[in-house]
């Protein structure tokens, strides 16, 4: 699985010399990378980005195992008896329910819950500008909030330091996955993923169908043992003849309480158009709110709330997992070559940020000899715009000298998630200039992350 996740960093890239930099950049050009390979959140991707899972999916195999084992035992040991004594529909119903449960579970686990991509450097700078204009800019700013009116009710939007944006309403940042998720419900370890806007209906159908399945199996097993003990045998004898039934009974008995309870709770949430997160925090409870206010998202009609939550339109995934990153150019003369490798390791991040500073200095010394100073400002933008405006077409960088700089802003535009990923640990150490120096696109100095990183050319070597 590790092989699919992301590439190992080329050890030659860790040494800073023009020749190593050149080898390293030339190697990169040969392969088009997909966006999932540089995704900054703590997610794992399989099948070339088609399947997304949280990093810690430890209990998902347990959940699947329990379901498969229980159903297997049921079909193997109870169904033959019940088919002869009762009806053939028992395994049919059991089969349909099991299929539904497993499909819903896999859909919940493998679907993007509604992850919001992190803000681009330009957006982050724009937001910073607005905040600075409205209030004083302290070195370590206090938690930032913005109040808006939703359906004539005041709602506070919080600023996410990791994703560098004001979270939309009902969005929350999952610390386990390190992503902001829209309509965040909760992070479910049994399912191995967050439950949010895009997979809540799968999660709900999973727990409802699982409730039916466990109740059905429990009922069938009890019927089986009862029927066996009615044929002139004692209960103990019946159990000895079918020991698997006891295993199923135990599993079902203990899971029924929790599953039925959870189903009931989520049915209440669906009917009132609430999320688990909001319910636990008591955001719209009557104790905290005045009489006029309440849940501003509710339609005040149980049927409408249910239909909207479960049968509403299915929004698309906003993280373009399988999209290609624009080609990084093959020139050692690029000034700010941010290699688009996801660096998930702390020491690697420190190494890489210092290394990038040094690399950039080396390249800037090279590039001054080769290209007119005016060129860098125009051509990288051209490539970024072509990437932004017509993503399927026009991936070829502009000709001439600009080719050497083509990678720069493209490194900036698609790699902001990566830059964010690198900076997320430093979001509370934003004062550290060494980390800000690792930011992309110094040529577009107006669009800096946090609006404070100076031009590369003026940075003294560390």
């Amino acid at each position, binding site marked *: 699985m590790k092989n699919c996740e992301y590439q190992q960093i080329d050890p030659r890239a860790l040494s800073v010399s023009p020749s190593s930099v050149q080898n390293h950049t030339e190697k990169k050009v040969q392969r088009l990378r997909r966006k999932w390979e540089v995704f900054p959140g703590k997610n794992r991707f399989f099948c070339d980005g088609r399947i997304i899972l949280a990093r810690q999916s430890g209990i998902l195999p347990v959940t699947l195992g329990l379901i498969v084992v229980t159903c297997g035992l049921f079909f193997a040991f109870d169904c033959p008896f019940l088919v002869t004594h009762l009806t053939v529909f028992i395994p049919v119903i059991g089969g349909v329910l099991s299929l539904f449960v497993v499909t819903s579970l896999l859909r919940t686990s493998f679907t993007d819950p509604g992850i919001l*991509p992190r803000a681009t450097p330009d957006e982050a700078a724009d937001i910073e500008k607005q905040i600075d204009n409205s209030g004083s800019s302290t070195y370590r700013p206090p938690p930032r909030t913005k109040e808006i009116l939703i359906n004539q009710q005041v709602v506070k939007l919080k600023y996410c330091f990791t994703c560098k944006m004001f979270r939309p309403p009902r969005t929350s940042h999952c610390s386990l996955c390190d992503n902001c998720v829209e309509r965040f419900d909760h992070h479910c370890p049994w399912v191995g993923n967050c439950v949010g806007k895009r997979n809540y209906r799968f999660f709900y159908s999973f727990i409802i169908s699982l409730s039916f399945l466990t109740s059905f199996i429990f009922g069938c097993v009890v019927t089986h043992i009862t029927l066996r003990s009615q044929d002139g045998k004692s209960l103990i004898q019946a159990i000895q003849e079918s020991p698997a039934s006891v295993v199923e009974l135990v599993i079902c008995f203990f899971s029924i309480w929790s599953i039925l309870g959870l189903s009931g709770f989520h049915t209440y949430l669906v009917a009132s158009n609430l999320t688990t997160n909001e319910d636990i925090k008591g955001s719209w409870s009557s104790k905290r709110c005045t009489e006029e206010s309440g849940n501003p998202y509710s339609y005040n009609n149980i049927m*409408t709330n249910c239909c909207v939550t479960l049968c509403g339109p299915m929004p698309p995934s906003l993280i373009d997992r399988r999209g290609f990153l624009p080609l990084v150019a093959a020139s050692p003369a690029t000034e700010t070559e941010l290699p688009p490798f996801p660096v998930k390791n702390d020491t690697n991040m420190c190494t890489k940020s210092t290394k990038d500073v040094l690399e950039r200095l080396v390249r800037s010394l090279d590039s001054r000899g080769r290209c007119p100073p005016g060129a860098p400002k125009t051509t990288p933008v051209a490539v970024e715009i*072509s990437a932004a405006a017509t993503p399927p077409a026009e991936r070829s960088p502009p000709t001439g000298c600009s080719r050497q700089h083509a990678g720069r802003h493209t490194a900036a535009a698609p790699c902001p998630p990566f830059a964010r990923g690198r900076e997320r640990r430093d979001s509370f150490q934003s004062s550290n200039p060494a980390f800000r120096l690792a930011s992309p696109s110094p040529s577009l100095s107006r669009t800096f992350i946090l609006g404070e990183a100076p031009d590369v050319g003026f940075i003294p070597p560390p």
Partner: protein
Amino acid sequence: MATEFHNLQELRHSASLVTKVFVQRDYSEGTVCRFHNKFPSDLHNRIERTLLEETVKTLNSYYLEAEKIGGQSYLEGCLACATAYIVFLCMETRYEKVLKKISSYIQEQNEKIYAPRGLLLTDPVERGMRVLEISVFEDRGSGSSSPSSSTTSAGSSAR
């Protein structure tokens, strides 16, 4: 005054980015996707107010159509539920169809209205539906002093 670009290609190859203007989401009606229809001050002398407002209004109506809760969306939802959501793997949802329409609408608007004025709209889907990004260009051939001054002023204000 803004330079004239004859088409999008020219814009891409000969323009330098001055700044980006962001039109934020309007949450006054809930979590439905809508953008504020306020005219950003940075675009005062670049484009007529009515054109941008018309674009934003049309985009808002498209998003409303995509997220409309009615007969068709319920049918789609119930069918999906009945087939254990496998149908989503085969079928394109209504939302996705509308997003494609929006994409081509933005492309058309860029070609006809915005590129000739040195502006470029970015599809909100590429920005996580958070903002409508409008890139403002200045031709590097003419007015070389103004871009750099606006650069430095924007850069210093960003600090």
